[in-house]
């Protein structure tokens, strides 16, 4: 489930450099993640759901802090799925006053980078077809809309299955290492909105 980033009142004032990104560090982060996700999403996740992700794949979850306050989080997993080693983005939340400034993009990017370095061949997630913000965010990162899932959500809304396929080395002998592909673009402004 994704939190959408529409235009909102009460925007927080900050410089992008003030945001601190931290990898999941332990049980003390869990209540922060839970409260962010619980407040934004209608699905009732039990604590076991969170534990499943952060215990097995702590290196894939990240938190964003501003002045000591947790303002965003991403929770992911990865594993073998039908002969592909695949990453999965389970939850992504940024609180409303902090949206539209690239925090979600940064959180996701860090996680995807970690997945790539861990040997994932692709990354996937589901998003509501109406969630323009999420679709734009992931579209910019190279995800395509692979499938449409009819009435995926209980409110009858369809979902897109989004997929990012990493380049396979043998197809790109002339390209630099995949991690450097990211480095090449680091200087560009990824968030054009």
């Amino acid at each position, binding site marked *: 489930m994704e939190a959408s980033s529409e235009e909102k009142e009460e925007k927080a004032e900050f410089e992008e450099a003030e945001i601190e990104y931290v990898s999941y560090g332990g049980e003390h982060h869990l209540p922060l993640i839970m409260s962010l996700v619980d407040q934004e999403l209608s699905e009732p996740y039990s604590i076991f759901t969170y*534990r499943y992700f952060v215990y097995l794949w702590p290196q894939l979850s990240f938190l964003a802090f501003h002045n000591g306050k947790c303002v965003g989080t991403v929770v992911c997993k990865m594993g073998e799925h039908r002969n592909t080693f695949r990453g999965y983005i389970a939850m992504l939340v940024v609180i409303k006053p902090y949206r539209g400034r690239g925090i979600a993009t940064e959180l996701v990017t860090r996680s995807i980078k970690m997945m790539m370095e861990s040997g994932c061949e692709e990354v996937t997630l589901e998003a509501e077809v109406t969630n323009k913000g999420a679709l734009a965010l992931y579209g910019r*990162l190279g995800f*395509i809309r692979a*499938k*449409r899932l009819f009435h995926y959500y209980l409110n009858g809304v369809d979902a897109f299955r989004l997929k*990012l396929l990493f380049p396979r080395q043998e197809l790109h002998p002339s390209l630099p290492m995949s991690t450097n592909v*990211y480095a090449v673009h680091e200087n560009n402004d990824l968030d054009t909105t």
Partner: protein
Amino acid sequence: MADRAVSEEASMAGHATKLASIPASDNTVWADASPLLEAACRGLRDGELIHGDNFNLFAAMSALEIMDPKMDSGIVCRYYSIEEAIENGAAPIPISLESTIDVQCTIDIMDHLLACEAAWHKGHSLAQTVFSCIYLLRLDRTASHALLHSYCRVIRTTCKAVVSVVSDARTHEEEDLFTMTYGLPLNGDGDEKCLSMLNAVEETISRQLRACKATSSKRRVSEDLEPLQSNTNLEEGLCKALLCRLRFRKHFFHVLTCMKRPQGRGLELARKHIASCILELESILKSAEFLRFCSDEFCEDDIEDKTTASGREPIGFDATLNSRLSAPTPPRAIKILSWKKAVEYFVKLLHDLDVMCSYSLDPHLESLLRFVVQFQKSQPDLVARAHLQLLLVQDGKLYGRDPIFAVITKAAALPEATKNHDIQKNEYIVQLGQLVVNLLKILCTNVAWQRRKLGKILQDWRVIYVQLELAFRNEFGEVSSSSNAENICMKIFQHILIWVEEQTYWIACRFLILGFELDLYSASEYCMVYWYLYAVLIKLAEKTHLKTAFSYDTAKRKGKKKRDSPKDLARESRIPPAVLFLQCYICLAEGLTMMLAALRNEIMVLQSPSPFNTEQEKFVQHFELLQRACIPDHVSYPSFKESTTQARFSTLVMYNYFKDAQRIAKEVKSSFSNDPDRLAELRRLEQVAEHNSVALNLICRVGALDPSLKVSFEFSHHPFFATAIVRRS
């Protein structure tokens, strides 16, 4: 160990009262486990988890938090059981001792049931919708209330019939929630007589209506008939409100019964009942004003969201009573459709069913495919689509009437007599028949699921082609035989092989096109999609043309005519209209590919640089299923790049594909003068061609590099061919 602990706790004082409140039965004794759980909690530190053989972190995700209303389906919301609800007066019989209120409340129940039924059709469980009605859950109780009883019986019988249709048409998981009826009382003795019961009630109310009208015009009627209810001012309105509701149910039930008759025998009669249903629904809508007016609790609140015409809450419904029955999912509060939306839903359903019933049951597969594609454009819901599938495929035959091999030979443009040929026993021909049946079923599913399935079956169609071709070669080798029988066999194989290829490319086209309708492509991907579509369309046109040429050839060889008339020769050399139609598509696809490529090459728009992958990965992902099935051969990302890197506006304006499309569309219109759907499509294609041609010229005139130029692509004239919109800022 647990037993010992429990018995220890049970002996503690203070628990006696708690235990007494939960009735013990033959096999259960309740004991309070709170102290045990508290001790266990104290024994665990934060972050620790109990391990078990079958209880790991993944399994733990399915854990329920007891007493969390979102997860615990056993939670008692109000009543512990249906019986308790009834004992507490949740579903009184009669609803009121005051006859007027009783009638008004009955109408509310009917309306709410309609809203529940529509919510069920739209994808919620039967348990939380229609069977949230306590009267339905204990139907026998209502026996003394003829109106409610007969109405509920018809509802139950109708639901059962609809569940049966959707079950029979079962293709995939969409139907799972719909057909779940576990624990619900869907079967009743005497339900087959429900219509006669309803008719009896209808008859009585009709007489009551006549009587009240007679009284109002001061004519005495010697009938020993009690009025419907006691308020003479409301008698006429309430009778009418009831009658249209009863009649709607009657006709709707007849629609279902007629459509179920095999080989489409009941379709004409079904249409009559559909027309009646729609009339009654109109009357039902009109009754709303009266019902709101005579309601004591007239409220200013927005009537739009209400589930009844009167705006009142209906008596006798509780969705939580079934929560344990509607497992395995925990209960989520679902929103029942508003009454207005429910009526709209049924109107649409009836229109969709009417379209089906009006269909001519054309034995030509090509026409049928076009019909189904057109039908899907109105976005029919599950119940409509299930009916369509059952109409098309029954007993492994088309319309339950035409054997699949006959359908194939007709589609492959073979002579009529071929349908009896022994070749149908060939194992690959049999498999091909199964693929055709499967294809028809798939085309009746929701388009999101359909597209994925169409992509998957491409492999199967490719494989059957290869197998047939191999079988063909094994039979006939390279040298053409002199035997007549073998010649016929060879002809059949050749025709079928071409047709299989044609059908495969048709599926591939559908797969690509549906991607637009499902909004699966972002603008930066349009270029590669149109390019791939162009490649597939070329092959489709080639196979269609070959098939037509072959059929003329075969007809000639059959030799009814000794000499070719000039007309025949002219017909042979002309391109068949179906192929011209495809060529129009081809021009548009090519035009759009090149225009998008030129935009990218010259202005660098619609590029989507990503930090993690390149355009090649997107190409591979979008076309994976097609590539795997080699549809078409020799198509790859490098060949896409090769075809498009040189695209420039200066050359495009000289080879204007859009002008070609316009010309062909104009030319081919006369061949489809009897086909309104295709004429409409040609007009849309002309629009797209015209607007894109103008856009192209504008871009060239202004100069592609002019920074004030903004080009976007929208589907304003056609569902999958985009129109370029050029704006000057």
